[in-house]
């Protein structure tokens, strides 16, 4: 197990190098000139050329990558072209906000999504099931920005219970995390429902019932434990995505997270910033996947890593 974890951690190195390569060259294939963007519309060609030289963009592309990579192995992601601040500092400033939002959202999603899915699988085709499945359909199909705006209208403007945006207190976290969680709740509920229905029709569920176990024991101990693998997969993937930042939600609630940072940097062709942010995102994603894989082994004795 320990060896497996080490092996996986070592494996992240080539993956990260792969990401950095792809990222670096794909960014430079984007139309638009960072120097031009930075200099503004009114700049003279000399000014633009000056900025280009400052950014090191006048050198051949493989030299640029070599510089980028040699800094990367020293954990130096360079300076933002837009703000001149070190990229690491900018990311560090945003990352806690993103992680907070992601953790709260995924916790809400598990807390509501899994029980909702179980209820609707245990009582299929009853009003409870219809309630859950239609709520889930709503959650899946609502555009995030619309739902966010509606929540702002109701809870910030009409009821004036919660702030409409920004950060600062736990109250600021509620609306954006609920907005983010709604999709994930719906997704997890649907997944839980279908997996539980399948597990409940398995032979071993009948065996468990034939032993005279209470229905709650059959559902939680015998069925849910078997249904957890796909649920963990979905939770892991969704959590990974949330860590990448949620551009729309962050925009609606003026939440200073990674998502908006990445989008703003892309619009400004801020190469160092984009590269840094995406690499951090990649690293987090790999880590979440590793944890997910390790959780499988905790749940299912048939899965062994050795």
């Amino acid at each position, binding site marked *: 197990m320990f060896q497996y974890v080490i092996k996986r951690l070592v494996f992240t190195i080539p993956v990260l190098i792969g990401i950095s390569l792809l990222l670096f060259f794909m960014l430079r294939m984007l139309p638009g000139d960072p120097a031009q963007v930075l200099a503004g519309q009114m700049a003279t060609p000399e000014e633009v050329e000056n900025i280009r030289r400052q950014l090191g963009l006048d050198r051949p592309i493989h030299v640029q990558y070599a510089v980028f990579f040699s800094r990367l192995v020293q954990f130096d992601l360079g300076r933002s072209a837009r703000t001149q601040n070190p990229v690491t500092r900018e990311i560090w400033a945003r990352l806690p906000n993103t992680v907070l939002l992601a953790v709260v959202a995924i916790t809400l999603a598990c807390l509501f999504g899994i029980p909702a899915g179980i209820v609707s699988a245990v009582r299929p085709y009853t009003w409870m099931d219809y309630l859950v499945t239609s709520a889930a359909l709503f959650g899946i199909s609502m555009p995030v920005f619309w739902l966010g705006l509606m929540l702002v209208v109701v809870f910030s403007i009409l009821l004036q219970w919660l702030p409409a945006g920004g950060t600062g207190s736990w109250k600021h976290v509620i609306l954006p995390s609920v907005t983010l969680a709604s999709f994930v709740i719906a997704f997890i509920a649907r997944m839980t429902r279908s997996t539980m229905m399948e597990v409940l029709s398995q*032979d*071993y569920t009948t*065996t*468990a019932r*034939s*032993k*005279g176990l209470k229905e709650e*024991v059959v559902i939680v*101990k015998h069925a849910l434990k*078997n249904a957890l693998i796909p649920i963990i997969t979905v939770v892991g993937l969704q959590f990974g995505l949330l860590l990448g930042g949620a551009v729309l939600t962050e925009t609606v609630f003026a939440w200073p997270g990674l998502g908006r940072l990445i989008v703003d940097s892309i619009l400004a062709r801020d190469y160092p910033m984009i590269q840094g942010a995406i690499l951090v995102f990649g690293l987090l994603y790999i880590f979440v996947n590793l944890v997910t894989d390790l959780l499988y082994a905790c749940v299912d004795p048939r899965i062994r890593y050795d």
Partner: protein
Amino acid sequence: MKEQDKPLLTIEGLHTCFHTLDGIVNAVDGVDMVVYRGETLGLVGESGCGKSVTALSVLRLLACPPAEIQGAIHFQGVDLLGLDREGIRRIRGNAISMIFQEPMTSLNPVLTIGEQIAESVRLHQNLSGKEAWRWAETMLEMVQIPGPKQRAKDYPHKLSGGMRQRAMIAMALSCNPQLIFADEPTTALDVTIQAQILNLMQDLKQEFHTSIVLITHDLGVIAEMASRVIVMYAGQVVEEAPVRELFKNPRHPYTQGLLGSVPVIGKKAKMGRRLQEIPGVVPGPLETPGGCRFHPRCPKVADLCRREAPLETVLGEHRRVRCWLAA
């Protein structure tokens, strides 16, 4: 009356139907049977004739709806169909337990063998966690699993098919039930393991004084194990007889067909006869033929069989047949 003669389980007029999108499926259609203490009753028939549904109906293990169970099932005088959910739960695994066909899929893959045996003991016998675990180890030893202490901690995927079926039997016997429904307990196993499992069941039955309802389509197993046999076809009982009677003098053409389709080594040379088969297949539950349900496949079919369904003819004690030829 001797203890032996008292019925343990009586089933009268059992109808189990399923409400499906295609219509109502009558899986079990008017089945009567009695199980006595300490006996092994064989329940025989082709796939889809309602054997398993009968067993599942007794323990009410079918989801209702879509299933609907009617009739009367009495176990030691208790009306099983009249019990509430809690009542039937106390019977399951305790007084009546089940052994299922597929040891590969009937055990929970994420719980240890020991836990799966111990949990019902904890529940029904009020044993502590430790006592229940020790009992689980004892049961595993009883079903002749080598290294029971180690095996109790193993998960089902580490056990072979035969081992798993032994564990399943240990689970079914763990609360010392009076009745076990064994639903094709050896079908999924290879022949040498089959014999071992059957011997084991035979021995344990003696030791625990348990009645067994053995559901199978294998007449060899019946000849070895059962004292009395009930033959089912398309949801109905077509013949009942003590086991020797049935093999010596089968009265229903279906039973005759079943017996004729058993290969006997050396028989062809002696009798100059090929292995027989019953033409056709069991009718689907939605296309039950009118008249006698067996008539489209019956070699002795007469006009009357096509028009009218035969009633049961009682030929003696535990000897009945549903056929116009016997009427």
